[in-house]
């Protein structure tokens, strides 16, 4: 059972990497020497939805569901002013996707966070973009988009206090909350 899911995950990734649809998201996995560009198809995101009436009374999983206790995943860390996924971070997201595949009643709320540098409002958007990048990857791994929500805290909820580089690094993150 566990093996099957890994095979399925691998297949999805291969298919996505080799496909070239019109709705693609380019993403750099890594920086500098050895950086490799891959494209990931995102199926549930209508880029052409310029206008319309969306549901304006949406409850997040944090409001509408119960948190699953005893399950936790490592935060995904980001570079300064960046929402790109570093290669070492990708496996953390795959573990979450794996959990969602194995627990069909579970859903995930991804919290995007920033360090305190920059404007509060810009950081709210950057945190959302970080969470959305993680979400896009989870969805690309075969998880239904309705099971994956995003929430940005910007710089409003740091994990580490202070203004040292290490605190900044720990605060530029995406966190996973599992709900049922």
């Amino acid at each position: 059972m566990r093996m099957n899911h890994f095979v399925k995950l691998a297949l999805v990734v291969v298919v996505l990497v080799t496909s070239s649809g019109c709705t693609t998201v380019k993403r750099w996995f890594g920086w500098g020497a050895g950086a490799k560009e891959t494209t990931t198809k995102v199926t549930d995101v209508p880029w052409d939805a310029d206008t319309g009436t969306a549901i304006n009374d949406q409850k997040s999983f944090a409001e509408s569901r119960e948190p699953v206790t005893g399950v936790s995943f490592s935060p995904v860390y980001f570079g300064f002013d960046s929402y790109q996924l570093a290669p070492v971070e990708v496996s953390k997201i795959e573990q979450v996707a794996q959990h969602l595949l194995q627990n069909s009643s579970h859903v995930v709320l991804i919290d995007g966070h920033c360090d305190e540098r920059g404007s509060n409002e810009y950081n709210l958007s950057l945190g959302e973009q970080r969470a959305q990048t993680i979400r896009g990857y989870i969805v690309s791994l075969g998880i239904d988009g309705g099971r994956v929500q995003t929430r940005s805290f910007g710089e409003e909820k740091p994990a580490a206090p202070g203004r040292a580089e290490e605190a900044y690094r720990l605060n530029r993150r995406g966190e996973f909350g599992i709900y049922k």
Partner: protein
Amino acid sequence: MKRFLLMVAVMGTVTVVCGADITVRGEGASKDAVSLTGLAATGETGSLFVQTLQGDLERSGWFKIDPAGQIRVSGAASARADGLSVSSLVSWPGKRMEWNRSSAAGATEVRRLAHQLANDMVKNIKGERGIAGTRIVLVNRRGPNNADLFMCDADGRGLAQITQDNVAAVGPKWDRDGQNILYTSYLHKSPTVYRFPATGGRRLPLAKFNGLNTGAEISPDGRTAVLILALSGNPDVYTLDLGSGAVTRLTQTPHAVEASPAWSPDGAKVVYVGDASGSPQLYSVDVATRRSRRLTYKGSENVNPDWAANGKIVYATRRSGGYQIAVLDPAAGGESDTPLTSGPDHEDPSWAPDSRHIVCSRAEGSGRSSLWILDTQGDSPVRLFPNAGNWMSPDWSDK
């Protein structure tokens, strides 16, 4: 009638010198001298009226108080059993204004009456919009995901807490008539735009879509909100029709982050922050055509734009590693090489309705920030209020 004739006669002789005489160099900006010695105050409320008027005139930036000033306020502010009665004459070279009004006895009412006279003097003598009696809404951040909104008068008085939530609160904004406040709160665990009457009342969600809801500002005509949503998988600038509830996306940048939209005074354009170039910069988007134009190139970051009634945009620019406040005129083009501020980080600027003063936050050494009023015409910055705390994101009401 006799007095009027006398004034005209006197004016004939004074106008020759008044241009040089009444305009004196103040601390920075040039100011007209006002004499309040002819305004008699009786009782505590009378004194409060004159004190408030004096403070308002000085804070307006246009006047200095000087017993020898040629702008003369005479008459009486008299305490009565039921309140305060003001019977006054304001005269200045060539003109005069009779001003007779009364108020209830409360300090708020008396101060409001003084604000009205100060604003009438600014309007009639200088032809400018006064700021007395306007208000500033702001955020007090106490810790991680722990903040609340506060409000004070433009002179820093009357600081009062207006939410009691102890959750993150971001970017409060007044609507154009100064009746309602919009802001982003985590009251229901995810970032939601709420709107509530400034005088108190129900707080209702304005935008509670999936994902990010933030940065909302109501258009000058009151019909539309501009805000940041992430309906298409990443943050973009949207409009929300307050009547129909329809949303329209103004930017289409799947690989860029947008933030901090603010309306132009005519409601035809929106200035916002976008990082499509690789760093946060200011752009202006035409609401009808949805065409964007980049406005800033100087500085490694340009954020927090606010568009004044006179068409100028104030923003925080990152130069040499620190954030400072700068102003640009999108019609004339050209960014200034010299920001208004220097030294510690200055962020979150918001225009006063006079298009002259700006309130912004300034970093303190302790990691906190305080709020300061800047003058684009040269007066020194003034701290809004002395209270200790971490104060940020001020927004100045239009009324």
